């Protein structure tokens, strides 16, 4: 399977897992937010999958996906996840031959989100999943792991990051207003991003296990 198709498969898997978890995500967002996170992520990935065909590189697939996502989803997560996918795609040109190439792109995408959201790890957002994931991926990649191996090994850090949001006080987004009231519930964005990373990992593992 070529990398463009593999990337498209990862995005298909993202849609599946988001649809499966939509109610849970809606619930998490209703505790301190406005309850639309599940619907928004689903709308975004539905549009991504619908816009999928006709790209020749992984970068192109992701850049297109980012635009489709952001336009369809709306909301904070539409802007942020859309920006993430788009930046990731624009920083991946041609064939990816080394795991480190992806690390550079992951870092750029993460920075774009930080800039757009004026936020950082610890603010109880999706960055609390993304930042530790990217760090762990980078470490594994520099230690010589393959892309798939590095990705899979970084999921543990992503999960721990996601779970850590439960004990954080929200500093960004709608829920920030609620301060202490946001304690005790996992951040919806951190949760959905973890599910997506995990679903992509499953695809990589079965189609590109090297």
């Amino acid at each position: 399977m070529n990398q463009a198709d593999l990337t498209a498969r990862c995005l298909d898997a993202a849609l599946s897992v988001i649809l499966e978890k939509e109610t849970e995500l809606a619930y998490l967002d209703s505790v301190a937010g406005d309850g639309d996170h599940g619907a928004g992520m689903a709308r975004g990935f539905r549009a991504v999958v619908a816009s999928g065909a006709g790209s020749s590189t992984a970068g192109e697939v992701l850049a297109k996906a980012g635009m489709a996502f952001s336009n369809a989803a709306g909301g904070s997560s539409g802007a942020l996840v859309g920006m993430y996918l788009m930046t990731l795609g624009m920083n991946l040109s041609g064939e990816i031959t080394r795991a480190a190439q992806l690390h550079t792109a992951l870092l750029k995408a993460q920075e774009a989100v930080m800039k757009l959201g004026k936020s950082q790890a610890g603010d109880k957002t999706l960055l609390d999943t993304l930042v530790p994931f990217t760090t762990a991926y980078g470490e594994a990649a520099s230690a010589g792991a393959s892309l798939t191996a590095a990705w899979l090994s970084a999921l543990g850090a992503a999960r721990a990051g996601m779970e850590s949001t439960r004990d954080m006080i929200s500093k960004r987004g709608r829920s920030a207003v609620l301060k202490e009231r946001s304690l005790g519930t996992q951040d919806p964005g951190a949760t959905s991003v973890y599910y997506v990373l995990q679903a992509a990992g499953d695809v990589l593992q079965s189609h590109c296990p090297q």
Partner: protein
Amino acid sequence: MTKVFNNPLDFREQMLDGFTAAYSRTIERIRDASGVMVRGGPTAGKVAVLIGGGGGHYPLFGGLVGKGFATGAVMGEIFTSPSAEQCYRCAKAVDGGAGIVFAYGNYSGDVMNFSMATMRLKLEGLDVRQVLVTDDVASSTDVDSRRGVAGDFFVFKVLGASAWRGDSLDTVEALGRRANAMTRSFGVAFGGCTVPGQGQPLFTVAPDQMELGLGLHGEPGVETSKLLTAQEVSGLLVDKLLSDIPRGAGTRAAVLVNGLGATKYEELFVLYSDMHRRLSAAGIETYKPIVGELATSLNMEGCSLTLMWLDKELQALVDAPAETPAWTNY
């Protein structure tokens, strides 16, 4: 509970369709975008005011589009900011060549999406300004970080009236900022609301309790209290706003007692009866009070008080004629 819908996935589109069909005498759909504009489109040479945000707040946002009010509105899914792409398309449609003001409540999703659209439009050479509404005193002690709630109505009215009379982009923007700086709101909720197709309300409130400092999007309040009488609620809301009077405020204020959807007019009048007495006793001249539903949150139970402290110019803009699906004055 939201009960009237078909497939929840089609809700926004069908809502927009019905809205446009009903009010085609005043507004028209923006082609290929999730928004509406004043019938016949923008007037060349006039500043365009594009308001917008998530759905579920009617008459925000489309209901306030028309002569003397907003030039257009970009409308997102229920409680979800419209995307940057939609903001961009609607901005292009309402552009009259004299610059655009984006006006919306201060929510991170809206800020991100409208700001991305602004960047893109600026790259194309358009002059775009952003006026954020930050009237909700409950949401932060830092004025600039506050959310926008029912104060949207007054800020948009001032912007629209200024643009409509032909003010320059600088002037429209400055007046919009002044309107926002002079506007304060505080609200309470008695019960949550349900997004179409979802089985559970966004939050629930025990029958003998209420939430203080609610948002417009079904977010719970910042604090829970026992259920108060109308007079106590009135005292709470008036006191909150009188302890946060903006600098430079006079003694006259435009008043909006806003119902969120399921707290009804009769209740709002009982509330206003006491508010009027308190405001008068505090030496405040209430200017053309409005009691009604101007910024809803689906069928949420709750209400808020908004004051916009008036000077001569803001008052003239409040008084300026307007004709929209949900608001007419002459």
